[in-house]
C-alpha cells in the first residue's frame, strides 16, 4: 500500500485540476487548518457543495475541490485534510504541505478554531513561513462568545501581519468578508507582509549561512528561509520533493501563464 514515504501524488492532483476546463479559474485557494475547525463548512458555505462534515478529527479523507464566483472572478477552492502541523509526520500533513508549497495556490486560508487559538496558531505560523499569501479565518466565533473568550482581532492582525477574518461558517457569518479578503490577496490587490517567526540564535545563524546561496538557486520559486529550514532539518522526503519541484518548474516554463 502506498501510504507513506512515497510522494503524495499532489502533482497528479494539481495536473488533473489544471487540465480540467471547469477548473480553469482565475485563482486557486487552499483551505488548511487543524482537524475539526470547520474547513469543510467554510468550503461548503463558499462553493455550495456538500463536503462531509462532522464533529470528529479526521473525517475529511480526500481532497475536495470546488468553485465559486466573486465579483466576476472564478475561484477554485481546495479543502485540505486537517493537520496540526506541516512538518510532515503523517501522510495528511504531507498532502497539506505539498499542496500549499507546490500546488501554487494564489492564497492559503487557514481556518482556526477561535476557542482554541493558541494551538491553531502553530499551523498558521508554519503556513506563513511557506507563503506570504496567508489569511487567517477565525472560525467558531459563536462558540468562543458562548465560552466568554475574547479575541482582539486588530491586535492579532498586527502581531501576525496577515489579514484576520472572524467567521461563523455554519451560519455563513463573515463569509462575505472572507470572500473579499481572498479576492484581494489572491489577485494581488493587497500588499502582504507576514511577520516571520524568529528562531533561537543558533538556528538564525545557520539560516544566514545558507539563505543567500539558496536565493540564487530558487530564483523566487520558493521561500528561501523556509527551504533553508527544511535543509537544516534534513528530512529527506521534503528535500527530494523540493528538488523535484525545482526541476519540473523549470522545464515547464512557458507552459504556465
Amino acid at each position, binding site marked *: 500500500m502506498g501510504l507513506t514515504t512515497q510522494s503524495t501524488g499532489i502533482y497528479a492532483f494539481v495536473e488533473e485540476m489544471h487540465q480540467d476546463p471547469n477548473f480553469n479559474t482565475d485563482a486557486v485557494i487552499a483551505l488548511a487548518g487543524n482537524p475539526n475547525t470547520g474547513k469543510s463548512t467554510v468550503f461548503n458555505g463558499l462553493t455550495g457543495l456538500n463536503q462531509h462534515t462532522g*464533529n470528529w478529527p479526521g473525517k475529511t479523507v480526500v481532497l475536495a475541490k470546488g468553485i465559486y464566483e466573486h465579483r466576476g472572478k472564478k475561484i477554485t477552492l481546495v479543502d485540505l485534510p486537517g493537520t496540526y502541523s506541516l512538518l510532515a509526520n503523517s501522510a495528511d500533513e504531507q498532502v497539506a504541505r505539498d499542496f500549499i508549497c507546490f500546488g501554487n495556490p494564489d492564497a492559503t486560508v487557514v481556518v482556526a478554531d477561535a476557542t*482554541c487559538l493558541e494551538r491553531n496558531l502553530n499551523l498558521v505560523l508554519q503556513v506563513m513561513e511557506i507563503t506570504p499569501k496567508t489569511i487567517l479565518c477565525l472560525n467558531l466565533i459563536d462558540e468562543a462568545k458562548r*465560552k466568554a473568550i475574547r*479575541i482582539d482581532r486588530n491586535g492579532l492582525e498586527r502581531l501576525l501581519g496577515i489579514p484576520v477574518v472572524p467567521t461563523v461558517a455554519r451560519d455563513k457569518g463573515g463569509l462575505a468578508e472572507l470572500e473579499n479578503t481572498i479576492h484581494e490577496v489572491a489577485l494581488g490587490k493587497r500588499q502582504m507582509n507576514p511577520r516571520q517567526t524568529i528562531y533561537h540564535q543558533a538556528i538564525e545563524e545557520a539560516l544566514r549561512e545558507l539563505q543567500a546561496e539558496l536565493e540564487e538557486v530558487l530564483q523566487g520559486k520558493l521561500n528561501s528561509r523556509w527551504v533553508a529550514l527544511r535543509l537544516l532539518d534534513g528530512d529527506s522526503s521534503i528535500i527530494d520533493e523540493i528538488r523535484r519541484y525545482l526541476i519540473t518548474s523549470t522545464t515547464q516554463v512557458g507552459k504556465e501563464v
Partner: protein
Amino acid sequence: MAANQENSFNHLVFKAQAVRKQMNTNLRDQVVKDIYQRAEEIAAKAVALPDTRNDLDRKIDNIVTSRIWGYPLMFALLSLVFWLTITGANYPSQLLSNVLFGFQEQLTGFFRWAGAPAWLHGVLVLGLYRCLAWVVSVMLPPMAIFFPLFTFLEDLGYLPRVAFNLDKLFKKAGAHGKQILTMCMGFGCNAAGIIACRIIESPRERLIAILTNNFVPCNGRFPTLIAMAAVFMGALAAGTNSFAAAGVVAGVVLIGIAVTLLVSRILSKTLLKGVPSTFTLELPPYRMPKIGTLLIRSILDRTIFVLMRAVVVAAPAGVITWILANVTIGDMSIVARLAGWLDGFGRIIGLDGYILLAFLLGLPANEIVVPILIMCYLAQGTMLELDSIEALRQLLLNNGWTWLTALNMILFSLLHFPCATTLLTVRKETQSTKWTVLAALIPTGAAIAVCFLVAQIVRALGLV
C-alpha cells in the same frame, strides 16, 4: 532547472548537513518549541481566556466517560437510536407499503387490460416492481430516522468519546484506537467506513480496520436485522415488542464489536503482526448541531444516496430473481434447483438453501437479501399478500423457520461477506487482490463458524 543549478542545490543540501552537525541544539525540537512559544505569546496578547475548569463540556464528559456510566450510557444510546428507528419507522413503513403494494394491483389490472403475456407481468410487476417496493418501503423510513439521529451524535462530538471509552480493548487487540471511528462510519455504509480507514496512518492497523469493518452492520443490513428481530425475537417477548427488537439489534451490534476485536486480535498475531503505533485522539468540544442543516444533509446526502444505490441494484435483482424462480428446468425452477444444492449445507449451519441463495444473489447489495428470499419462497406456490410483519412471519413459518433460523439469519447477515460495492472499495483502497479476497473470506468463515456452533449447541440442548 539547469544541471548546474541542480548541482548547486545538492551542494547546499550537503552544506546544510554540515552546518546541522556543528549545531549543538536538536533543530527540530528547537523549531517546534520556538513556534509554539511565539503562538503562546501572541495568544497571551490577543486572547482573553476564562477559566475552563468547570465548563459544561467537562460536566458532560464526567458522565459520558465515567467509570460507572460510560459503558451503560453507550449501550443505552445505541438501543435508544434503534428503538426510535424501529418504532418511528413502523407506521410510515406500513403506509408506504400499503400505497406501493396497492399500486401493484393497479399495475396488474393495467397489464390484464392491455392483454400482456403472463411472463411480462411476472418480470416487471412481480419481479422488478415488487422488489423495488419492498426495498423502498422497508428501507426508507428507518434510514430517514436513523441517519439524522446518527448524524446528530456525530456532529455533537460523541463519537470521539466512544473511541476514548473503548480504546483499551482495541489496544489489547493490537488495533488502532481510531478503528472505532471507522466502525461508526460503517454503520452508515461499510464502503464509507473503509474509506474512512485512511485516518489510520499505520498500514498494518489500517488493514486490520479495513478487513473487519464489515462486522459493523451497515444500513443495508439494518432492515434485515430489524425485520428478523421483529418477526421472531420480538415475538418471544409478548407480541412484536419494539423494545425487545431494539434490544436485539443493539445486542447484535455488540456481537459485531466482539467479533471485530477477536478477529483484529487474531490478525495482529498472525497475518498482520506488529505492535500498536502511536495513538493520540483529540476529544473536540461538544457543539450543538443545527437541526435544519442536519436534517437536510443527512436525508439528502445519506438517506437518499444509500436508497438510490439500493434501488439501482434492486430493480435488476428483482427481474433476475423472478426469472430464476419461475423458469423451470425439468420439473423444478432454477431457484429450487440451486437452493436444493445449497440446502444440505444450509441446514447444517441452521439456515436453508434459499437463505444461502438469497445471500449469494444479494452480493450486489445487502438490502435486497430479504426481498429475494421472499420472492423465492413466494414462488413455491403459497401465494399470499405480504403486507405486514405478521404475513412475513407466516410465510417464514410455512417454510419451516424456527427462532433458530431467524437467529442464525441475523448472525449470518451480521458476519457474512461484504457487498460488492464494499469489496470494490477494499480493492481500490488496498490495491491488492489478496486483501480483497481475504476481506470476503474472513467474514464468511466467521459467519459459517458462528452459525454452525449456534445451531449445534441449540440442537444439542434440544431447544428447537
